[in-house]
Structures are given as structure tokens and as C-alpha cells.
């Protein structure tokens, strides 16, 4: 009953999406705002319906309804309740439903706004949102139905289908297969929703961009409306990426956070273009330039969002042939193809309307530096895109699979990221329109000198001879000093003029220009993250050894002593081997760590959970690799020393704060508020008349 009801709701939502598309297009051409508004309401109605469907599926997951095949695939009786519920996005069908759910939520939210000034954009915003929703809901309806039930046929075999096949009887499995052990981590509970929210939020700016292209309103109206959405999308995607890294660090047991895995890169690619867009769109707003480029960037972001979902959901990454065999692979492929054709055609059609209102007038102006920033982001995208695509091409052409792994990406993107960090420092010093080398040099030479001295200090006193680390730290310190100086300059000037306390002045400058100073906070967060990345990438050390109880192994300043090991079963169907190691730093006892190996009986999968000692300075990361099963006298440990890695995680908090500041609505001046009230009442009077 519940699955049928849930499926029915999805089916109705699919119908509403189709109606919304047709009604909106007709409304636009017949100039009937009623029809367009009806389309808008139909689109909004999808949200509560998909919400109820999702809640029903969660209920089935929570109540061990093993007559539903999706519930059987992703849960088991021994799983804790929070994991059962969040298993919604632990499998293919559920995650597609979740995608559709978040999309309908955002579409409903964006169409709740006042449309007085943008009535011409509304029909096409509704169309683009509804087409995307129809695609994802369609995948759920026709290919990946999370409500499909088990049936036992006459020959005794069990099949999964929504409706009862002839002669078959309902079948309920005694227990489920359980969620993939790797996904049973707090990071994995939050990571997929964050990524999906990031992905889905980008549909909103894309829909406005396409609406602008179709209607010919190619001024910066669409960028102003969607500015906040673009930051929201960027924030969610950033959090999703960092959480994914944290999950890898905590669960995958290889001492790192980023393995340049194609699934990771699939999420990174829209982030790269989205970040380029956030910078580039400022040039359009300030100088009326790069209109066509911003259109290209937002279209590319949307396509990469769909492409990323396609990569992770179609099975194409495990084998190029799996794509054709998967139910949804070809559907994704066609959808991406149609999106590209329509977007590019519209772009060509409106190209002449997207002419810049002014031109680049200086090599070192802020817009020139932003253009260079965009070039670097797109270069990193090219490396990533080609690195992900090449193994598929190789398999298709030669039949031979290849791995494009970390050395390729690190070599290619390292200098590009360093260039971005440098630009991040120098660009805020540059003015819109015109800047000379002299003025730029005058405002940056002190930071350059201090960073050089500090790095020289690292070389002399800390014996840091790695040239990449030297360059990396020099750029990071340089950018950090300039960004901090920008805060100091603004706050001290305000403090002087307004006669305010320096901290009060600092607080108030945030209120005056939230976007700028929120952006600077984000820059500082990226600098913190860069410190963590440089620390781990350049200075990570590792060692592995087999110890008898009481024996020790040393790494850097640490001494790790194997104390004990216990093997036991848990209530949730796991077998745990848990070691106890005591840690000394510079000869002083600092505590114990408990690295362990979990073996999941249901899925017959092991999972290595490290014991980690975290400080601002470094992480000591201990893995239990092997042990003598009966006596437990000897055990093998792999130990990583990860300097500065916590800066990466802490930087994320600042990134969230900075993004919130940047997207927080600016207080309207009272005169503007009055003007809006007047214009609104005039519009209402006119429509009533």
C-alpha cells in the first residue's frame, strides 16, 4: 500500500512537471500570465508531493520493509535508526529521488519571490526547472524506482517489480543486505546531501541565464537575481567536497583526504567553473563586460553538474561498457546532448546582444586579473575533464583500461593552483578600470618582502628545502598578509574617521560591503586550507612495521608502542579487531590511540578505522594493518605523520562564515524601501485597473 502510494505521488509529480513545461511555454506565446502562473503553481506543487514520497520511503527504510527491493539493498535489521533513514541516499534509486526532492524544493523557493519586475523571465525559469525535475523524476518513474517490490514467480525465482506479475506472489526477505560499510560514517550522512544541494542550486542561476537568452534580456538582471543562489550553490558544493575529503581521511585508511578519484573529480569540476563564475560575474556587474563569458560559464556549470551525476550514477567509471548496460546511462547522455545543443544555439542566437559595454583598458586592472583567474580555473578544469575522460576513451578505442592517477593531476594542477593563490592576493589591490605596475608594486611590496623573509626563516631555521613548499608557503603568506592588510586598512580608516573602536569599525565594515569582506574571509579560509594541503602533500611521512606487544616504532617526534589487541563481535553484525597503542612525543607520554579493523559479516567487507591524534601542528594517524589472529602478540601498524592537516578542516569553518557574510542581504536604505513600496503599489493599481 505505502509503496503504491509513494509511486503514485512520483507519477503525479512527473505529470505536473510535464504540465508545467507545456503550460509555461503556451502561456509565454499566448501572453497569458494566468497560464504561466498555473505552470508555476504546478511546479511548486511538486515539492510537497515529492516530500511525502521521500518521507514514505524513509518510513519504509526505518520499519525494515524488506518486501521493497530498495529497502532490502541498503538497510539491514542491525543498522541503527539514523543510518536506516539516511540510507535514502545510500543507493541509486533513493539518491535520484533525493536529487528530485532537493530540486523541487529549490524550484519552489525561487518561484515564491516577487515577479513584478521579471514577469518575462518567469515562464522560462519555470520551464528549465521543470524540465530538469521531469528528467530526474522520469528516471525514478521509469528506470530506478525505489518503491519496486519483491515478487516470487511460479518457478520460485524472486524478481523486483512495481506491479504484480502474472502468477507471482508477494515476497518479503527476512533481512536486508545492509548499507555499504564505507558509507556508515557521519561524514557520509551529510556529504551527499551537501553535494546534491550544491548541484541542484546551480540549476537556479542556469534557469535564469537561459530565460535571459530566450527573452533577450541579456543585461545583468539575471546575474543580480541569482547572485545569492550562486553563492549558496558554491557554499554547499564546497562543504560537500570538504566533507567528502574528511570521510576519505577517516574511513578509507590511506592517510589522505583526496585521491584524485574520478568520483571526487566529478564533484570538483562544477565547483571549479562555479568559482570562476562567481568572480567573472562581478566584472559584468561592475563594468558590463564578459556577458557572453558568464553565460558560457553558467551553462558549463549546469552541464558539469549533470555530467558529474551521470559519471557517478551510470556505472561508466567502472567500465565504459557498463554505461550502455545501465538503465539510466543513455538517458543521461541524451539529456546532456540536448542541453548542450539548446544552450549553444541560444548563445549563438544572442551573441550580438551580449556585447560588452566597455573594454579591458589596463593589463593590471581588476577585470584583467579576474580574466586570468578564470583562465587558471578553466585550465584546471581541462586537466580534470581530460583525466577523467581519457581512461574511457582508451578503453573504447584500444580495449585497454588505464589509470590516470594522482601524479598526473598533481603535476598538472599544482602550478595552476599556486597561480590562483597568488592572484587571490594581488587582485584585491588592483582597481577596476586602470591600475599600473607602479601602484600595484607600491601596495604589495611590503607583503612580498615579509613573506620572503618568513620563508627564508623556514629554510634557515626549520631546514625546509623542498622548492615546491618554499614557493607554496611564500605565495600563501603573501596572499594572507595582503588580505589581512585590506581588513586593517578599511577598519583603521573607519576608526579614524568615525572615531570608533577598531573592533567596532571592523564589525561595521562587514555591514557596509558584505560581499567584498565576506569574499576576503573566504580568501583567508582558502589560505588556511592551502596551508593544510601544502603540509600534508609536501611533508607527510609514513612508516610500517610489525611489532610484538611492548615493542615500539618511531616516526618524526613520536614513539608508538603496541600495548594490546582485542577481537570481539558487536551487536550490529561486526567483528572488531581493536588495538591499543600508547603514544609518546619527544619522550613524553601523550595518550593512547585505538586503531581498529571492522569486518562486516553481511557484506563480507573489511573497513580500516585509524586512531588519530590531532593537533594544530600535526596529526599522528595509526592504522592496524594485520595481526596474529590467535595469540594477538604481534600486529602490523602503518603510521602516517600528517603535518598541518587540521588547517584544512578548520579553514572550512571560516569558509562557511565568509560565504554567509557574502550572501547576507545588504540593508536597504530607507529611500530605496519607500521607492519600492511606491512602485509596487503603482503596479498593483495598474493591474487592478
Amino acid at each position, binding site marked *: 500500500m505505502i509503496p503504491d502510494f509513494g509511486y503514485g505521488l512520483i507519477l503525479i509529480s512527473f505529470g505536473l512537471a510535464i504540465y508545467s513545461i507545456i503550460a509555461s511555454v503556451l502561456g509565454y506565446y499566448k501572453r497569458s500570465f494566468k497560464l504561466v502562473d498555473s505552470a508555476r503553481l504546478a511546479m511548486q506543487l511538486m515539492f510537497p508531493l515529492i516530500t511525502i514520497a521521500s518521507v514514505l520511503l524513509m518510513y519504509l527504510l526505518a520499519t525494515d520493509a524488506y518486501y521493497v527491493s530498495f529497502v532490502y539493498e541498503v538497510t539491514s535489521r542491525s543498522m541503527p535508526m539514523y543510518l536506516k533513514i539516511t540510507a535514502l541516499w545510500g543507493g541509486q534509486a533513493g539518491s535520484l529521488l533525493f536529487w528530485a526532492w532537493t530540486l523541487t524544493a529549490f524550484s519552489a523557493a525561487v518561484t515564491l519571490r516577487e515577479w513584478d519586475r521579471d514577469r518575462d523571465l518567469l515562464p522560462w525559469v519555470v520551464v528549465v526547472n521543470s524540465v530538469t525535475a521531469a528528467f530526474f523524476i522520469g528516471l525514478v518513474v521509469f528506470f530506478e524506482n525505489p518503491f519496486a517490490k519483491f515478487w516470487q514467480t511460479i518457478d520460485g525465482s524472486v524478481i523486483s517489480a512495481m506491479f504484480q506479475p502474472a502468477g507471482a506472489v508477494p515476497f518479503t526477505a527476512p533481512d536486508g543486505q545492509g548499507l555499504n560499510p564505507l558509507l556508515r560514517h557521519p561524514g557520509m550522512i551529510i556529504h551527499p546531501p551537501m553535494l546534491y544541494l550544491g548541484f541542484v542550486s546551480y540549476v537556479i542561476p542556469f534557469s535564469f541565464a537561459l530565460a535571459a537568452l530566450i527573452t533577450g534580456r541579456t543585461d545583468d538582471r539575471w546575474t543580480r537575481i541569482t547572485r545569492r543562489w550562486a553563492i549558496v550553490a558554491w557554499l554547499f558544493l564546497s562543504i560537500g567536497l570538504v566533507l567528502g575529503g574528511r570521510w576519505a581521511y577517516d574511513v*578509507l*585508511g*590511506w*592517510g589522505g583526504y583526496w*585521491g584524485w*578519484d*574520478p568520483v571526487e573529480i566529478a564533484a570538483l569540476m562544477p565547483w571549479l567553473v562555479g568559482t570562476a563564475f562567481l568572480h567573472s560575474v562581478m566584472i559584468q556587474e561592475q563594468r558590463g563586460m564578459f556577458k557572453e563569458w558568464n553565460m558560457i560559464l553558467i551553462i558549463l556549470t549546469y552541464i558539469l553538474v549533470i555530467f558529474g551525476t551521470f559519471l557517478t550514477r551510470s556505472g561508466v*567509471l*567502472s567500465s565504459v561498457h557498463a554505461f550502455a548496460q545501465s538503465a539510466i546511462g543513455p538517458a543521461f547522455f541524451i539529456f546532456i546532448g540536448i542541453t548542450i545543443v539548446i544552450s549553444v544555439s541560444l548563445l549563438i542566437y544572442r551573441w550580438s546582444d551580449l556585447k560588452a559595454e566597455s*573594454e*579591458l*583598458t*589596463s*593589463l593590471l586592472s581588476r577585470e*584583467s586579473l579576474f*580574466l*586570468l583567474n578564470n*583562465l587558471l580555473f*578553466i*585550465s584546471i578544469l*581541462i*586537466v580534470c575533464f*581530460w*583525466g577523467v575522460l*581519457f*581512461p574511457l*576513451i*582508451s578503453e573504447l*578505442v*584500444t580495449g*585497454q*583500461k*588505464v*589509470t*590516470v*592517477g*594522482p*601524479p*598526473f593531476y598533481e603535476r*598538472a594542477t599544482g602550478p595552476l593552483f599556486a597561480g590562483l593563490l597568488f592572484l587571490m592576493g594581488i587582485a584585491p589591490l588592483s582597481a577596476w578600470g586602470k591600475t599600473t605596475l607602479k601602484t600595484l608594486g607600491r601596495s604589495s611590496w611590503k607583503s612580498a618582502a615579509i613573506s620572503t623573509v618568513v620563508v627564508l626563516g623556514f629554510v634557515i631555521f626549520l631546514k625546509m628545502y623542498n622548492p615546491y613548499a618554499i614557493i607554496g608557503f611564500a605565495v600563501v603568506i603573501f596572499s594572507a598578509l595582503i588580505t589581512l592588510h585590506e581588513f586593517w586598512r578599511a577598519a583603521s580608516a573607519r576608526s579614524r574617521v568615525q572615531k570608533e573602536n577598531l573592533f567596532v569599525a571592523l564589525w561595521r565594515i562587514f555591514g557596509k560591503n558584505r560581499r567584498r569582506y565576506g569574499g576576503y574571509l573566504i580568501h583567508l579560509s582558502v589560505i588556511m586550507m592551502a596551508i593544510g594541503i601544502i603540509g600534508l602533500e609536501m611533508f607527510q611521512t*609514513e*612508516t*610500517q*612495521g*610489525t611489532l610484538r606487544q611492548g615493542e615500539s616504532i618511531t616516526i618524526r617526534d613520536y614513539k608508538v608502542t603496541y600495548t594490546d589487541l582485542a577481537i570481539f563481535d558487536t551487536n550490529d553484525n561486526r567483528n572488531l579487531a581493536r588495538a591499543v597503542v600508547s603514544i609518546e612525543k619527544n619522550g613524553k607520554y601523550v595518550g593512547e590511540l585505538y586503531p581498529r*579493523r571492522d569486518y562486516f559479516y553481511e557484506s563480507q567487507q*573489511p*573497513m*580500516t578505522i585509524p586512531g588519530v591524534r590531532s593537533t594544530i601542528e600535526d596529526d599522528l594517524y595509526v592504522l592496524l594493518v*594485520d595481526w596474529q589472529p590467535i595469540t594477538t602478540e604481534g600486529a*602490523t601498524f*602503518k603510521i602516517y605523520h600528517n603535518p598541518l592537516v587540521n588547517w584544512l578542516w578548520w579553514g572550512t569553518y571560516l569558509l562557511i562564515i565568509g560565504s554567509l557574510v557574502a550572501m547576507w542581504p545588504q540593508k536597504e536604505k530607507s529611500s530605496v524601501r519607500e521607492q519600492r513600496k511606491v512602485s509596487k503599489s503603482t503596479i498593483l493599481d495598474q493591474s487592478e485597473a
Partner: protein
Amino acid sequence: MKNPLIKLAVLAFFFGAAMGITSTVSAQEPMPSDNEVNAIARDLFCPVCENTPLDVCATQACAQWRELIRLKLSEGWNEDQIKQYFVDQYGARVLSEPPKQGLFWLVYVIPPILIFIGVIIFIKALRNIRAIEKEEMALEQTANEPDEYMSKIEEELKGLKNANR
């Protein structure tokens, strides 16, 4: 010991004994350490699991492959020989990067070409700036230069003033 055959037999005995001792010594040499094994395993990818380096893969198969590396090291194989052995057995996918040969060159060549095109477009945009800057300078210079037409008018005006006087 005058008999050369006896001499040869004694020599053979001592040579054999020496060889025996040597082989015993080499057999007693410590096996390659985990760190030596991991130094090679780090650059190889698990032939079975997706995108997992061999040194960190937790499966039983990968543990056996790491032991195979240890064995090969103990037999005196070097890093390149061991990597080639894995490539021969499981294909190029075990390497962390495609080998620089044939079609695989494309992975290294295409990104720089595309980035180079981007750089050219960027430089072109910058050249436009220089053209604009030069144009502005030329305009400024022209503005400073005496205009023939204007000076002619001024002369005529002067002439008119003088005539009125």
C-alpha cells in the same frame, strides 16, 4: 696431493663449501621491510579494486600482491622490473599514469594544447588593451598638438579684430 685430480677435487670441495656458505648467508639476509615494499606498491594500483593504490588496499588479494613485491625484491628485482612484471600480468591500468607511448601520449599532450589556446586568447585580449592604450596616448598627443584649422580660425579672428580697430 700430487695427483691433479685430487687437487681438483679438493678445490671443488672448498669452492662448493664457499658457495654453500654464501648462499646460506644470503638466505639469512633480512627480508625487505614493509616500507621498501610500500615504496613500490604506492606507485601501483590494485588490478581489481577501482582507483586504489596497492599500498593501502585492504583486500586479501592486495596483501598477497604486496607479498609478491617483497618476494621479488628479495630475489634481487629492482623497482622497474617489478612494475613491468605487474604491467605484463595485469595491463597498463596497474600504473598510476598511462605509459608514455602510442595513444597514451594524448593524455599528456591534449591539456597543454588546450591551455595554450586559452593563453593565446588571453594574450589577444591583452593586446587589445595595448592597442587601446596606444590609441589613448595618440589622442592625448593630438589634443596637445596645435590644430591647423583652429589656428587658422584664430588668425582670421585676429585679422577681424584688427580690421575693426
